[in-house]
Structures are given as structure tokens and as C-alpha cells.
């Protein structure tokens, strides 16, 4: 999401300086007894502390899912809060085992930074929020508008690209911090505010009068957010990826944390295969885990839909629609290869 030029530079330096991190992450994780995940230092719904100080959010639950798969215990997840500058060096140096931190999957990160991405636990995209009083129905009508934007992020670049390619004039009002940009927009300093759509939902909560604002239909960038691991450890990469696929498959098959015990014995062959109750199944052990790995994920953390609803969905103040994150069977993009 927020890729600063600095972070890219540091990440590149990291690649040159750090020796290749140890290849057998799974063994390290098992030896430590805890999986260490890099999360953001506070993005509503993705990773933020609750009243008790426990981390919650969709990225946090992904990490808990990995802990459930490896240890059968979601509490064996340790979270390291990372700023967008710190995140790549932290993964590169082995301070974290996996980066479940709201990170956009791009080719440069996949290649030159030396990371691997495969799953997308949240499809995001950059959008605009405007005052209704402007009477604007589309971003193409925004010519000449003052746009509040956070500096040093791809958001700023996307904005410039979009306005340039559509031959529109605009007047950027840049801020160092997201909070300042939001406040400025809310107090009328600019006509438009732009950031990732998940961020727009969070910002509505901080507005004096959310109903006076509307989100424009245009989504001007692709921001597939997913976990990253270091290159060169395919086994660990498989585990991290299949944790997500297990959650998505569970939702598709109708397995939830509530009915998983029942489904384990009474479900169809595909359900039993996934939950490890099929005779002679080797799926879990081939992955380097136990055969009840998927059962543990669903039982202890939940399927993808449950996690989504609990962290960012309708049961939360954010009230984000499934949209692109719906299952492929329901018009979304969440599609998981079969477990067989």
C-alpha cells in the first residue's frame, strides 16, 4: 500500500547486506515455538489493538491462522509492529518470519526486493472521497480540484498518473501523515481526499458529518494486499499460501468455526479430505504439518468470510462490503486452488 521510495532503497540495501536468511523457516518457527509476523502499526481493521491490547484485524488473523496450522494454537503468534519503512528490512533480516502487513504485491517487491507473494488476503484499490456539495458524480469531473493526499506513497503517484492520463488539472495538498490529511479534508481544506478504499471506510468514522461525503465509483489502482515471505524457502512459502487457501476453501465449502466439528465427520469427501479426517490422508504431512492443520485453522480462527466479517465487514464499525473480496462463486476474486 504505502511504498515509500526510502523503504525501497533500504529494502534494496537489505538485499545486498543481509546474508540469505535461513532456508528452513518452518524449523526455526517450530524451534522458537512461535511464529513472528510483521504487522502494521495501526491500520483500522487490518491490525490494530483492541481494548485489552490484543491485536485484531484481518492481517492479524492471517498470522493466527499460520500459528493454528503450525502449532494448533493461534495464540502462538507474535506480532511485530512495523512502519512502512521498517517492514522490508525486518523481513529480510529474519526479524519476522512472514510479513502480513497490508503490503501491495508488485513485481519489484517480488523480484528485486527478494520476496515471494502468492495469496491476496485483501483486494484493495485507490479511491476518492468528495463532499456531496460539490455535485460530482465521477472522478473525471474533478478538474481543478484541490486533492488532499499523503506524501511519499504510491497513492500520490497513482493520483498524478490518473489525472495526467485523463488530461485533468488538479492541485495537490500533501501531508506527511494520514491523520493530518484527513483532518484537512474534513475541515474543508481540500475538495477531495484520496487513499485506498479500505482507508476511506476508516476515515468516514472520523468525519464530523460522514453523510455529507461520498466515495466516487472510480478505483484508479490495483492494490492486491497479501503476505510476503523471503525467497528461497518454498516449504514455508507453501504453508503461508495454503493457510489462506484453506480459509477460502472452507468458506466455499460452507465450513465455519461453529460447524467444523460436525462437518469433520458428516461432511462430503472434499470436506473430509481438507479437514484431515479422510483415511490415509497425507495432505497435512506433505505440507510439513499435521493432518488437522486445516481443521485447526477453521476451528480456531475461522474461514475467510468469518475473518472478514469480524475484522472489517458488516459486524464492525468499518462496514466494508465484500466487493472484490467475495468468493469467485459470488462475483468476487477470492479463488483458491482445490485441496486434494
Amino acid at each position, binding site marked *: 500500500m504505502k511504498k515509500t521510495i526510502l523503504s525501497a532503497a*533500504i529494502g534494496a540495501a537489505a538485499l545486498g547486506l543481509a546474508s540469505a536468511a535461513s532456508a528452513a523457516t518452518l524449523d526455526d518457527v517450530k524451534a522458537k515455538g512461535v511464529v513472528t509476523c510483521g504487522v502494521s502499526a*495501526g491500520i483500522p481493521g487490518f491490525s490494530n*489493538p483492541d481494548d485489552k491490547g*490484543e491485536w485484531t484485524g484481518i492481517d492479524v488473523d492471517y498470522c493466527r491462522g499460520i500459528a493454528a496450522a503450525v502449532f494448533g494454537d493461534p495464540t502462538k503468534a507474535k506480532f511485530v509492529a512495523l512502519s512502512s519503512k*521498517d517492514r522490508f528490512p*525486518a523481513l529480510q533480516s529474519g526479524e519476522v518470519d512472514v510479513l502480513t502487513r497490508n503490503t501491495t504485491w508488485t513485481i519489484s517487491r517480488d523480484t528485486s526486493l527478494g520476496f515471494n507473494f502468492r495469496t491476496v488476503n485483501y483486494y484493495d484499490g485507490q479511491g476518492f472521497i468528495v463532499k456531496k456539495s460539490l455535485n460530482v458524480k465521477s472522478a473525471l469531473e474533478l478538474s481543478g480540484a484541490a486533492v488532499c493526499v499523503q506524501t511519499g506513497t504510491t497513492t500520490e503517484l497513482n493520483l498524478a498518473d490518473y489525472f495526467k492520463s485523463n488530461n485533468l488539472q488538479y492541485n495537490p495538498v500533501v501531508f506527511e501523515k494520514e491523520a493530518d490529511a484527513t483532518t484537512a479534508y474534513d475541515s474543508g481544506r481540500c475538495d477531495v481526499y484520496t487513499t485506498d478504499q479500505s482507508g476511506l471506510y476508516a476515515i468516514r*468514522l*472520523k468525519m464530523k458529518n460522514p453523510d455529507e461525503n461520498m466515495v466516487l465509483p472510480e478505483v484508479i489502482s490495483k492494490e492486491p494486499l497479501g503476505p510476503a515471505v523471503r525467497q528461497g524457502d518454498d516449504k514455508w512459502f507453501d504453508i503461508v499460501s495454503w493457510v489462506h487457501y484453506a480459509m477460502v476453501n472452507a468458506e466455499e465449502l460452507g465450513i465455519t468455526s461453529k460447524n467444523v466439528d460436525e462437518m469433520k465427520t458428516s461432511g462430503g469427501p472434499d470436506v473430509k479430505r481438507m479437514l484431515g479426517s479422510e483415511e490415509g490422508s497425507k495432505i497435512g504431512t506433505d505440507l510439513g504439518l499435521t493432518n488437522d492443520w486445516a481443521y485447526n485453522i477453521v476451528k480456531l480462527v475461522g474461514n475467510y468470510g468469518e475473518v472478514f466479517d469480524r475484522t472489517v465487514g458488516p459486524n464492525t*464499525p*468499518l462496514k466494508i462490503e465484500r466487493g472484490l473480496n467475495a468468493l469467485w462463486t459470488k462475483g468476487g476474486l477470492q479463488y483458491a486452488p482445490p485441496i486434494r
Partner: protein
Amino acid sequence: MATTSSTFVRQDMLAQQPAPLGISGPSHWFRTRLFATPKDTVLTILALALLVYVIPGMINWLFIDAVWTGSDRTACATVIQGGILPDGQSGACWAFVEAKFQQFMFGRYPADERWRPILVAVLFVILLVPMLIPKVPHKGWNALALFIILPFISFFLLIGGFGLSHVETQLWGGLMVTLILSFFGITVSLPLGIILALGRRSQMPVIKTLCVVFIEIIRGIPLVTVLFMASVMLPLFLPDGWTFDKLLRALIGVSIFASAYMAEVIRGGLQAIPKGQFEGADSLGLTYWQKTRLIILPQAIKLVIPSIVNTFIGLFKDTSLVSIIGMFDLLGIVTLNQSDANWSTPVTPVTGYIFAGFIFWLFCFGMSRYSAFMERHLDTGHRH
């Protein structure tokens, strides 16, 4: 010719009279201080108007319209924002501070183990209070307990060991971390600063050069850079699998940083001591260390108490910079909790910042008052 003497000598003293009303009492005070000249009058009226304009609104926002209890954002948001307050009402959301209070104090320290930081705090206060009152005897033992034994005990109490469960520093946070960082910084920087200051004035070229280089390098780098280097770059240079505790990195960074500043403050005091004092001590046959300990330092430090406390206060506030390396001190944890969508309202961030600001002010003001007291107490006549 009879002459009448016109001389008069009063035999009894007149009783003391109160000063005439014109030059005493409230009306005089007002007249001379607030309305002495037309310019004063205009300024006074402007200032009063400003206060009348600002204060009622502030009190209203902070206390009267404020929300004191609640379990989530609905308590602090107006109807239009998805809450229960009538539209147009805006007040501080103290319910947010209440819900997060434990976190603001201890960070994510496990709830069942929070007696440990509380015990440390109690021990700290028990040892600190007698240390601060000049009349209480046994300062030497007290200092030993406070600066050497207590940190040692606290370390094991907080991190675990000897049957206590292990609580990694990753989970520490809030005011606890702010106080640990500043206490450690203060405790280390004063002696280290004294040594560096003496070293810088030393006749021995190697020691002198080392001290000058250290002080000038550290003073030439912003604290943010020191912390950022320690957190981002250091892990890349260390061998694989080596992790260096983040809190430890911050502690070291903050203390060496404060030491360099402290050294310059102390050096200022050393330079203010008249040459006669050094020569007097020499002529008594005192060794270098006797001279320094008994004659020079007591006078030098007394002279620079305001600057020392100034450095302490600066250090206390600088600790909030550790939030850039992913540690959550008081300010960091307040900011972090603003990302909790369950409490996200237009007033929550401001309330959080006011709370953090108030706590910081409380400690800094306390330090400043104590230093003023110490200055009066130690004022044994150096007025020129």
C-alpha cells in the same frame, strides 16, 4: 522677652499604620499592574476578552459536553456519525481513555502480570521520595538502592525469571516504557556526562580527544537518526539469527545521546568555577580526585542545576521518539489506539493527545518545581 520653644520632640512612637489605600490593596494592584497606562488597559481588556472567549468553550469541551463512560465509539459519536449523542454536540471522549487506560499505562503487558510493573513503581516511589527530601539521612545507601539495586530487581521483576513468567519487552509499552527509558537515561547520563566533561577538560591528549570526538559526534546527530540506525540498519549488520532487544537498543541510544548533552552542561559548570578554587585545593595537597569530588563538582553541579533539569526534561520528552522504531511509549500507544475502529470518532484523537500531553506535563512540571526547590535549598551564597 519670653520665648516660646517651637521645638517638639515626640516621646512615644506612633503605632504602625497600614499603607494608604492608594498604594496597597487590590485596587492598587489592578491599577499599577493591569491599567497603568492606556496601552496596558487595552492589552488587559484584549487578554480578558480572549480568555472569556476561549475558556468557557474549553471547559465545556473538556468537561461539560465530554463523554465519561461508554464501551465503544457510539458513546462519543453524534447520531449523524453513527453514535448516540445529539447532533452538534462535541466534547472530549474520556470513555476512550478509560477503556484504554491500562494499555496507556502498561502497553500490552499481560493483564495477569501487571502487578509486577505496579510493584516496581511502588518500590521506585518508596526509594525516590526519601532521596528527594534533603533532611532524610543515609543518602548514600538510598542512592545505592535506587540507582543500582532497584534497576537490577526491576529488570527481573519485569522481564521474568526466578519463577516469574517471561514477558518479552515487545509487550511493554505505555507510560511504563516512557518512565523506564527516562529513568535509565537520567541515571546513566549524569555520571557518564560528568566523566565525559572531566575528560574533555583533561590534560591527557588521548582521553581528551576521545571525549571530544564522542561528544561532538553524538551531539551532531539527531536522536531520530540514532534510533533509526539502531532499529533498521543494525539488524542487517548482525549475523543471522542475532536479535538485539529493541528496548535495549533504545535504552542505549537514549542514554548515550543524553550523556553527550549532559557532558556539555556539566562542563559549563566546571568552567564557571574560579581558578582560585582549583589552586586552593591544590595548595591543601588534595589529589585530583579529592579535589574534583570535594571542591569542584559540588560547586559546579550546583551552578548548573537548571540546565541539568532542562536536559532531563528534554530527555523525558525525547523518549516519545522511540515510537518510530516500533516501540510504543505513552504517545506511541495513544496514537496506535487511534487506529481502533471501535473507537474511531472525530474527537477521539484529540482526547488521546490531550491525555498524553497532560501526563507529560505532570512529570515535567514536577521535575521543574523540584529543581527550583533544590536551587533555593542549595543557595549558600554565590550571589554577586
